[in-house]
Structures are given as C-alpha cells and as structure tokens.
C-alpha cells in the first residue's frame, strides 16, 4: 500500500508540474518551448494558484499543500461495509461524502460494495428499497448532508411504511471549526438525522471510527430485525478524511442476524382453537411472507383450515394459482367471516371498516358484531406516532406482537394438534366449494379482461396479457405496482414464487416506481431473473434519470410504459370535486393531464442510452414490440416500450 501511495504521490507531483507548464503553452508547442520563450514578467502560475483558481475561491495557505493522507478514516468505513456484506451503495456524488466515495473506489476497488451511480438522492434510496425486497438483503445509499437527505426523505419514508431495511449514510461535518465558509455550512446540521427520525428505526452520528463500526452494525441488526426499517448513520466528514489513528486497534463487530419475535405459545394455542371452531374462517395477508418459506408456510396454514385467503399484496404472500387465493372476493368473505386471522396487516381498521368518499365521510363496519379478529404483527412493536402509517386503531380480539412468518410453524402445529374429528371433517368439506369459487373467480377475471380488448388506447388487461405472453416461460419477476393496472397480473398471471412480485411502495409516494424497479432489477441481474416493470408515466417523470443509471450500469430491466398521459388518480379526485360542487364539469383536466405536449418517453429513454420504442397505441403492435425489447433485455441491457393506455 505504501509503495502504491508513494507512486501516486510521484505521479501527482509530475502531473501537476506538467499541467502548469501545459497551461502556459499554446496549442502545438511543448511546455518546454513555452517556458523558454515566456517573458520573465509572465511566469507560469504556481500550482497553488491553479488550485485556487480551479478548485474553489479560498485562499491557499502555505501549510495546506504539504500533507498527504494515508489510511484515511473512510477506508475503515469501507471495511465496515465489507464486513457487513453490503454489496451495493447507491450514490449521488456529494462533497460531504468525498472521502468515503474515494475510498469505495480506490481502497475498496469499487466491488462489494460497488457504487450504483444515481442522479438524485430519491433515486438512490428508491433503488435501495427495491433491491432489499428482491434480494432479501439491505443495500446502502449514500446521500449529501442536508440537501441530499432532504431529497432522499420521501423514498426513505416509503421504505419505512413498507417495512424495508435500508442503510442510509449521510454526510455531515459536526465540528463547526472544520467547515469551510459558505456551502459547507449550508450542507451541515447539528442533528442531521432529525429530519428523518420519525421514519427511521435507528440513527447515530458517530464521533470516532470505533463508534462508527459499532453503530453501523447495531443499525444493520435493527434494520434487518422485524419490523424491518431503514436506519441512518452519519458519516462525519472529518472522520472520513483524517487518518485513522491506530488502525490495528480498531475492531469491527461481526454482523448479527437477530431471530425475529415468535408468538407466545399460549396465545398461539388459543388462536388455533378459535380458528378450528370457526365455521367461516378467513385469512388475510399483507406483509406476511418474507421469503419463499413464508409463502410455503401460508399455503400449509390455509390448507390446514381450507380457509379462503385474501392477499392485500404488499408482498408476494400466496400463489395466485391456489384454490384458496380468493383475493378478488374480499368484501364477500369479510362480511361472511366469523373469525379473521390477520397476518401482518398494515391497516387492520381499514380491513374491517370502510369510510365513504362522500360528503361527511360516513364510516361503517364491514364485519358482523360477533366476528372475532386475531392479529399477528410486528407492527405492535413499533412506537412512533407522528406519521399516519400506523392507521386508525382497531382492537383485535386476540393480538400477538410477533412476526407472522416466524409464528406460522407453531400455529400450523397447534392446528394439527388441537383439531377434533368433527372439526377436521368440517375443514375437509370446505375444499370443494372453495375450488368451485376459485374457478368462478378466475373465469370472471378472464371475461372481464375481454372488455376493451381491441381498444385504442390499449386496455390495461391487454397490456398485461401481452407482457405475460412473452415472459411466462422465463424466470421472471414483476417489480412494479399492479394497482394502477387494475391488478390484472394478480387476476390473470400465475404468480407462484416469492420473488415474482415485490409488492407496492408502502407509503404511496410517487417516484417510487422506476427507482425500486431498478433496484429489484439489480438483484435480479445477480440471480439471472428477468425483471419486468410496468411503469406509470407520472411516476417516471419524478425521477427519469434512473433510466441513465440503468444504462450506465447495464441493468437489464424490461420497462413497459403504462402511459395514460395523466396523474390519473388525481383526475378522478378533481372530477369528483367539480361534479359534487356543480362547477365546470370539464375542469378536472387542469393540472392532472400530462398533455400539451405529450411526453415522448421513448425519446427520453434513448437520450439516456436506453433502447426504446413507441409510443404504441394500437394493441396489435404491442406483442412484436415487446418481443424486440425482450431480446435487448436478454442481452443484458435495459429497454423501454412506451404504450399509450387506458386509464386503469
């Protein structure tokens, strides 16, 4: 290392001298020639003058150019990331992290962690969000002090609401005497984490490297223990840039995988008894599965009761091909249930009640008075109240503060153990009606999809089925939110594996779509899985620069635009307002339609190096275009097809 640094020092000195001489020369003549003919009164500028003129406005003091820094603190910070097995760091380059970024590249070799270069901190955090959901491992994102963290905050909030781990690293310079006047002051704060503390699980601003290592590993454990959440560690600028003192004495704690909380045995046994006694039990899942094992356990649980399952789709919880997946019949089963088992349901009140979007907003219960609700969730362990992701309070009849997936084996075992013969017979008798109901539900979806099949703009059902036809025989993943396409993938596709779907954004902050899809696609690339993103147009306009990141890093991602040329949800809100108020019934389009001009997303993608076609509004042209795009993606590159679509 010393030899390498010495070499670099020599190179830098030589380069500086040559650079100074070259600056004095005119094109076509050497620095030596220029120096020979230069008048005595016009000596070439000194290296310090060049530095002052090109690097900033500060005066350069004689004692400032004497030192080189070996073994900077940020090298140790990279060691910590490596020890934590952080594979990628999404980076929006920033001066407050300059030491860290340089260490990632030159000390760490830009490999594990590798920088994923972003053009906006919201993109960086969104990429980390999607990556964690697909890979099951946290990713880091590195953001600038103050302004970068402010940019990233919405994406961090989405991850918070979505219970997704993320290692946020923010720059800062705690020691006010070390900040250069001006910009560095604007980009530092006394308490950097304050602006996001309501929606990170843990934060710290370490003041020593040993402190940094311990806090990072503590944060990592907190982030990856259910309830999983983002965490923030401030990487102090001085700590990054000053040499590590006594590196050999620094210790990096080993990463610890903390066992998730499992439901209390007595409460689990009671839940089993209640479920076995039910005539119409219902299972509702939201973020219940954390892995394929979770999906398999949920199938076992449902089959052990022959209870219908309503998947609220915050994750891939339950196969769409299984006869007990009756998610399209939610209202019917909620009304009929005498026992509801809610597994990691984020909004328990909203599951069993509704609020009408009519004047006065009347609410009503959706369940019978005698219906019993059993809730198993790690949400009971969260204790923050400022943001509304806690939803309205619903008192469950039996509540377990536990991780659902970790509790499922004991619950399944208790159901086996406690079932009486008559109960087992009743459970078996439910199978055939459930199979019939499932078949009717899927057939209804098929018939619904025919409506507007040949319409232009393209129907969302047609869009989804054209995609499905091209990917169904691949190892694939849907890395976007299907609610914008009326959930056609969940109604028509065979979604059977955990990694075939990553759920929604959590906080419904627009601008999640493309970054999260890119992060998930990054994880898919490592796994050899084809990532498909059905991309809303309004969402893409928030952080279009992710297209450049996809191209720059050669992340294969099939982007199919769901381009309804609107922030469509808002069109409906505005139309509802105008009509209720009996005002101009055509005013809803103001501020909601993306028109005059229409955005050419294919041109936008091409400008950033992404293969693209479109806009396509004739459904007959869509299949061949997707085939061409798929060939590009299979070659290891991103592609985009702009499709002009129906609203939903």
């Amino acid at each position, binding site marked *: 290392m010393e030899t390498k640094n010495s070499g670099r020092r020599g190179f830098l000195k030589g380069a500086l001298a040559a650079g100074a001489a070259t600056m004095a020369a005119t094109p076509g003549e050497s620095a030596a020639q220029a120096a020979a003919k230069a008048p005595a009164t016009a000596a070439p500028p000194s290296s310090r003058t060049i530095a002052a003129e090109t690097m900033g406005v500060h005066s350069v003091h004689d004692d400032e150019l004497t030192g080189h820094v070996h073994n900077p603190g940020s090298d140790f910070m990279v060691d910590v990331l490596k020890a934590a097995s952080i594979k990628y760091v999404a980076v929006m380059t920033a001066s407050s992290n300059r030491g860290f970024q340089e260490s990632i590249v030159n000390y760490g070799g830009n490999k594990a962690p590798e920088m994923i270069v972003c053009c906006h901190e919201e993109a960086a955090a969104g990429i980390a969000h999607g990556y964690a959901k697909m890979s099951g491992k946290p990713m880091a994102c590195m953001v600038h002090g103050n302004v970068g963290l402010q940019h990233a905050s919405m994406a961090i909030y989405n991850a918070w609401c979505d219970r997704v781990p993320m290692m946020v690293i923010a720059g800062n310079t705690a020691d006010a005497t070390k900040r250069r006047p001006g910009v560095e002051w604007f980009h530092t704060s006394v308490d950097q984490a304050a602006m996001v503390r309501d929606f990170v699980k843990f934060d710290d601003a370490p003041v020593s490297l040993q402190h940094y290592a311990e806090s990072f590993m503590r944060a990592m454990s907190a982030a990856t223990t259910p309830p999983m959440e983002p965490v923030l560690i401030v990487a102090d600028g001085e700590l990054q840039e000053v040499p590590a003192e006594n590196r050999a004495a620094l210790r990096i704690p080993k990463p610890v995988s903390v066992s998730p909380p499992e439901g209390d045995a007595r409460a689990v046994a009671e839940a089993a008894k209640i479920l076995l006694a039910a005539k119409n039990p219902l299972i509702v899942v939201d973020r219940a599965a954390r892995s394929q094992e979770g999906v398999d356990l949920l199938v076992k649980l449902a089959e052990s009761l022959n209870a219908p399952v309503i998947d609220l789709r915050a994750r891939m919880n339950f*196969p769409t*091909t*299984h*006869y007990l997946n009756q998610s399209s019949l939610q209202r019917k089963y909620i009304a009929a249930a005498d026992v509801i088992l809610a597994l990691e349901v984020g909004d328990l009140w909203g599951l069993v009640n509704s609020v*009408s*979007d*009519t004047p006065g907003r009347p609410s009503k219960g959706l369940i019978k008075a005698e219906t019993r609700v059993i809730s198993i969730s790690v949400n009971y362990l969260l204790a923050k109240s400022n943001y509304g992701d806690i939803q309205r309070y619903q008192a469950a009849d039996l509540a377990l503060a536990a991780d659902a997936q970790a509790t499922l084996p004991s619950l399944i075992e208790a159901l086996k153990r406690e079932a009486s013969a008559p109960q087992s017979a009743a459970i078996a008798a439910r199978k055939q009606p459930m*199979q019939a109901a*499932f*078949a009717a539900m*899927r*057939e209804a979806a*098929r*018939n*619904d*999809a*025919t*409506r*507007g*099949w*040949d*319409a232009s*703009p393209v*129907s*969302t*059902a*047609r869009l989804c*089925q*054209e995609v*499905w*036809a091209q990917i169904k025989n691949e190892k694939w993943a849907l890395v976007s939110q299907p*609610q914008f396409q*009326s*959930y056609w993938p969940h109604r*028509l596709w*065979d979604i059977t594996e955990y990694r075939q779907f990553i759920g929604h954004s959590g906080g419904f902050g627009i601008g999640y779509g493309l970054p999260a899809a890119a992060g998930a696609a990054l994880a898919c690339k490592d796994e050899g899985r084809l990532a498909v993103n059905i991309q809303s147009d309004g969402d893409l306009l928030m952080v279009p620069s992710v297209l450049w990141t996809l191209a720059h890093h050669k992340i294969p991602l099939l982007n199919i635009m769901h381009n309804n040329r609107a922030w*469509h949800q808002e*069109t*409906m809100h505005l*139309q*509802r307002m105008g*009509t*209720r108020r*009996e005002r101009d*019934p*055509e005013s*809803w*389009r103001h501020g909601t339609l993306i028109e005059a001009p229409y955005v050419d997303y294919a041109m936008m993608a091409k400008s950033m190096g992404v293969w693209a076609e479109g806009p396509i509004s004739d459904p007959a042209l869509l299949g061949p275009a997707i085939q061409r795009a798929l060939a590009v993606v299979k070659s290891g590159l991103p592609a985009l097809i702009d499709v002009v679509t*129906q*609203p*939903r």
Partner: protein
Amino acid sequence: MNILNKISCSLLLTLIGAAGVAGEAYAQSAVEISRGHELFINRGCYLCHGTVGQGGIAGPHLVPDTLPAEAFLAFVRRPPSEMPPFSEKIMSDAELHAVHAYLSSLPKSPTADSIKLLPKPVGK
C-alpha cells in the same frame, strides 16, 4: 289519374316520407353517438369506466349490458355509491341520453375463448 296511379302516387309519397324520417333518425343517432362519445370523454366518465366503458379497479364496466336509458339516467342522477351525483347543471337529460347512445353503440367484446392471450386458468 286512375286509382292505381293514385295509390302508387300515394305509396310513393309515403315511402319518400318514410325514407326521409328514417334517414333523419339515423343521422340524429350518429350525431348523438358522436356527441355522447365526446361527453363521455370530456366530462370525465372515462376516468373511472375506461374510454369504451370497459371498467376497471376505479369503476364498474358499463358495456356490455348497459342499463336501459331511464335506469341509466336515474343511476347517474342519484348514484348509490361514491360516484358523485351528476345534476342537470352538470349533464342535461339530452346529454345523458347521448352518452347512453354512445355506450349502446359500442360493439361486443370478443369472447375469452377466442382470445389466445386469455387461456383458461389452471388452478391447484
């Protein structure tokens, strides 16, 4: 003019008149359908129901099985749902009839069995 001629002349006049009325009715209908389409888009009906009334997550399908005109008008004036009530100030009866005419004019969708991309599901 003999009686046959009188009858023929009368028949001819009747036929011409009938043809005129039918043509006018046809023309009115085409105009009404076009006007209905325009209203369906500009008043924002399509936002929830889709441009061809196919429905989706935000609103039910309106085609096929469109309600009879009077029932359609009654529903739109006082919807028993979150759909806002469309008063006469927002859409007149004539305009709602035009929207109904547009929806009624839309062709039937192909059957699911005729669409290759909608195979029968295979459940477990």
